[in-house]
């Protein structure tokens, strides 16, 4: 009953605080939208200057969405690249191929380089195929009665298939499940933490402790009170991401909600726990770079397997590591509850530990 009183009070306070409510519900949507358009939008076609390149190869390059600009004679390659704001210059003289890349953005340069390589190899394969078939025709002409069959006299064709995603998959598709989880985590942490902090700084927590309320009643009151808003926020964010932004969701929507909700619980409890070690809102903010930002590093945006071993051990202590993992499994890979149950279990474990620690931390205010 005391817990219910606390829950009711938190609800009234939250509903009255329109700005905080908006921060919790709307801000994640705005950020997700921005990132969606930033990351999933195709980059503009690279501009490549060519000189002495055959028509066939130019066709190949154009097929790969490269804007090809032909030059007759080149004196100062670098100058031309700069003047015409090209991304690169491909020069061919017989067998010699020279490629100059601007490389102002290494990642897009790499992409351009790969595309050119592919085009060249396809083109040379074609040429060889032509040579072979010419050669076969030649032989046929010279040996009219002997059937010659050469199956390999064809351009090699690569059929790419994907286990996860498709050829339309963008960086955002792999990133978005993690982002959805992270924003739920971040905003729930912030709001619940500051909620209890305000109670600490205004003295009302002290005042609560002068009533017969038990310490665990306070923790559960906060858990349920802010938990309700965390559920609503989770639903908001997940539905917006999936239905409006059309983020790739291969697995079950319910599993996504379940994972996000577990993450929200952990964030909530972590927030109210850390608020015990802050004396002001400003000090609470100082926990963001320490406790929240590292969560992103270990959430799966950067591959964990590539990290040094000690970093991988740290990762195991980050709730977002499990949350991010489970979310990618469901949303991107389409795996079911079986593959995420371990992650979910660990998250519930985190929540349980934080509950105990919170009840313990309130001893600062009253020994019993």
């Amino acid at each position, binding site marked *: *009953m*005391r817990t*219910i*009183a606390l829950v*009711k*009070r938190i609800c*009234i*306070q939250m509903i*009255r*605080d329109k700005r905080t409510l908006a921060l919790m519900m709307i801000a994640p949507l705005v950020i997700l939208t921005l990132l969606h358009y930033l990351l999933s939008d195709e980059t503009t076609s690279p501009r490549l200057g060519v000189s002495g390149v055959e028509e066939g190869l130019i066709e190949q390059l154009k097929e790969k969405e490269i804007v090809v600009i032909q030059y007759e004679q080149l004196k100062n390659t670098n100058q031309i690249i700069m003047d015409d704001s090209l991304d690169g210059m491909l020069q061919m003289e017989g067998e010699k191929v020279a490629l100059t890349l601007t490389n102002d953005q290494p990642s897009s340069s790499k992409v351009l380089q790969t595309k050119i390589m592919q085009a060249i190899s396809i083109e040379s394969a074609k040429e060889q195929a032509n040579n072979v078939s010419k050669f076969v025709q030649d032989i046929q002409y010279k040996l009219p009665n002997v059937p010659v069959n050469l199956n390999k006299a064809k351009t090699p064709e690569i059929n790419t298939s994907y286990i996860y995603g498709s050829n339309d998959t963008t960086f955002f598709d792999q990133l978005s499940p993690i982002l959805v989880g992270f924003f739920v985590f971040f905003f729930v942490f912030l709001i619940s933490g500051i909620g209890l902090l305000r109670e600490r700084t*205004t*003295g*009302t927590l*002290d*005042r*609560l*402790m*002068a*009533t*017969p*309320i*038990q310490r665990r009643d306070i923790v559960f009151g906060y858990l349920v009170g802010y938990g309700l808003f965390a559920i609503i926020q989770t639903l908001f964010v997940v539905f917006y991401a999936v239905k409006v932004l059309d983020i790739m969701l291969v697995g079950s929507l319910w599993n996504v909600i379940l994972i996000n909700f577990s993450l929200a619980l952990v964030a909530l409890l972590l927030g109210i726990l850390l608020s015990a070690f802050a004396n002001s809102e400003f000090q609470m903010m100082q926990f963001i770079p320490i406790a929240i930002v590292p969560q992103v590093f270990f959430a799966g945006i950067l591959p964990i397997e590539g990290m040094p071993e000690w970093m991988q051990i740290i990762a195991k202590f980050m709730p977002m590591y499990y949350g991010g993992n489970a979310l990618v499994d469901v949303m991107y890979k389409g795996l079911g509850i079986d593959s995420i149950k371990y992650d979910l279990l660990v998250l519930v474990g985190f929540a349980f530990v934080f509950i105990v620690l919170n009840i313990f931390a309130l001893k600062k*205010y*009253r*020994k*019993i």
Partner: protein
Amino acid sequence: MTSTIVLDQISKSFGKKTVLNNISITVNSGQIFGLIGPSGSGKTTLVKIIVGMDQPSNGQVQVLNTKVPNLNLLQEIGYMAQADALYNDLTGQENLAFFAKLYKLNKHVQNERIAYAADLVNLTPHLTKKVQNYSGGMKRRLSLAVALIHDPQILILDEPTVGIDPELRKSIWAEITRLKNDGKTILITTHVMDEAEKCDQLAMVRDGEIISSGSPLDLKNHYEINSLEEVFLKAGGEKDENNRIS
């Protein structure tokens, strides 16, 4: 009259700093006990120890024959903190209802007590206003109403009349006196001497020690002075000579 609050050789120190030194007090039911002393003398720490929000480094506290801290005991204690600990984004009514629920009052009793407490501190017309729109005095009054909401046996009021106008102060004191006559125990801290005059028993606290205690009349007779203010100054001056009455 029975002893309801018994402090037995209470000491409290934060690190090396001693805040309370060997304090023993006995308060009876139907009594207004005043703790007077300048700010920083340790009154609030002492009050928090009695409520059970703080633990003494040494000594023992018993309230209603129960060792403090005890959760059930808190049901019988009404506490008014020195700083107004109220929810500013809630209305007066909601604040009172919230605390009433924490004391597990049933709906009917709840409404009755809210009406009573609000009326006592003249806040009935302002109950639907948010506390953030209250004046300092109104907040003080609401804090007092919260302390009274569950009809406690013991009232512990930490500087209850700060920022309250003289007229209302008079009516609050009238109510405190009425509660006393009902047999409740009232422990009050103040640094206003004319309020000390209204207490049945006084303890003067300075630098964490009781420098003098007794009824206002006892104190005045002992020091052969007419006003408590002078008693306080004199007792403070004599502290070093260790001249105490008991």
